[in-house]
């Protein structure tokens, strides 16, 4: 074995880096990467090689006006972000927040194949871009200590939440996921029912970037639509704390 041969999982890592894996497989790879330093190093090399490939194309100068457009927009954004930072905590930025949870593991019969393929590509892209991950811990005796894992890019709005080992939610009841904002308020991230093995793979689209959130929680609510605010017991959750840049 020479020093350039990457890890034994190289084929899967190439596909992971290209965003080609099926969501379940991509989650497996993401989990493996957390504990396997040689694979992380292999992935780093694969990503670097792929990145440099982008330099080997014919070069064209962008129009000069584009530079001004980028810099003007950034200068305007700088001021707005500053104001927002001051306003944070004073006002809940509730309006216009859209939170979608797509339940991929529970495939509905009418779900069109191309929708599924698109969602799979999105899950793979979110996982490939993720730079942070945390366990979702069970908080009641009926649940395992760890019921899933959250993957996200702190600067992004998308997250993949992979649940495993969830008991059935009970007749007429559903699991509902909530996003905890920095100001203490909650956003509804949607409802789901795990499959027979207790797994569910959710693609969660938050209203803001993840740096504005502090955690997630899981409750059991009346089905099929869930509740506007949590009414059931909190059965699992996670919290994080990072500095706002």
């Amino acid at each position, binding site marked *: 074995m020479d020093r350039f041969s990457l890890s034994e999982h190289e084929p899967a890592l190439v596909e992971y880096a290209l965003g080609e894996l099926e969501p379940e497989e991509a989650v497996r790879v993401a989990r493996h990467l957390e504990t396997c330093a040689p694979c992380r190093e292999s992935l780093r090399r694969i990503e*670097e090689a792929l990145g440099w490939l982008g330099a080997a194309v014919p*070069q064209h100068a962008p129009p000069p006006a*584009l530079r001004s457009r980028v810099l003007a927009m950034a200068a305007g954004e700088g001021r707005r972000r500053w104001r927002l930072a001051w306003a944070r905590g004073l006002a809940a930025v509730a309006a216009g927040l859209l939170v979608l949870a797509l339940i991929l593991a529970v495939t509905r019969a009418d779900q069109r194949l191309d929708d599924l393929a698109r969602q799979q590509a999105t899950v793979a892209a979110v996982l490939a871009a993720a730079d942070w991950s945390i366990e979702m811990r069970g908080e009641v005796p009926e649940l395992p200590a760890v019921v899933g894992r959250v993957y996200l890019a702190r600067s*992004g709005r998308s997250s993949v939440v992979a649940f495993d080992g969830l008991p059935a939610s009970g007749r007429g009841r559903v699991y509902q996921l909530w996003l905890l904002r920095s100001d203490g308020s909650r956003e509804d991230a949607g409802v789901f029912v795990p499959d027979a093995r207790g797994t569910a793979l959710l693609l969660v689209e938050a209203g803001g970037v993840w740096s504005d959130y502090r955690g997630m929680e899981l409750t059991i609510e009346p089905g099929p639509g869930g509740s506007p605010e949590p009414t059931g017991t909190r059965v699992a959750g996670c919290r994080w704390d990072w500095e706002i840049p």
Partner: protein
Amino acid sequence: MTNDLSPASDGEVIARLRSRDTAALAELYDRYGRSVYSLALSIVRDRTVAEDITHEVFLHLWRYPESYDPERGAFAPWLLRSVRNRAIDALRRTQRDRSLAQRVHVLEASVAPSDPDEMAVLGEEFERVRRAVAELEHDQREIVELAYFGGFTQREIAERLGLPLGTVKTRLRAALRRLAEVLLRERERWTDSR
């Protein structure tokens, strides 16, 4: 010798970007704007879309400078990968049914002499990568172009080129390994010479 290739100075500029210094963004644009735009244009083949992608990429960098983690490698390949991913997304949105008839030929098969200004800014790493790509075998380069710049999955490439999937995977991996090898070798040579 303490002066480094571009990555070290990129790190300094990124640090200034994190402290909301717009001059740092201008510096990064001057350094990479051309590469970013060129890569986007090679993939989407539409000047307006390539401009939008370039705009988005730099704005994203301005908004979330922490999204680049130096622990995960050099800045330039990271930036170019994010450009590629955005461009492929744009391509997939606009062309749902693409055929390999629209062959992707984007990689430079020969090492054209680079613009001296560009060389001064980007350093020799770009030149080495171009040389390594030019040295790839034709059938490896074809797979790389389709997978990376065309956004086709390896399965799609296999089906449409009439090749076994295993062959496609092997060629892609061989090409990436070759590139990784060149990059590593060059880096060691530089480290040794310090």
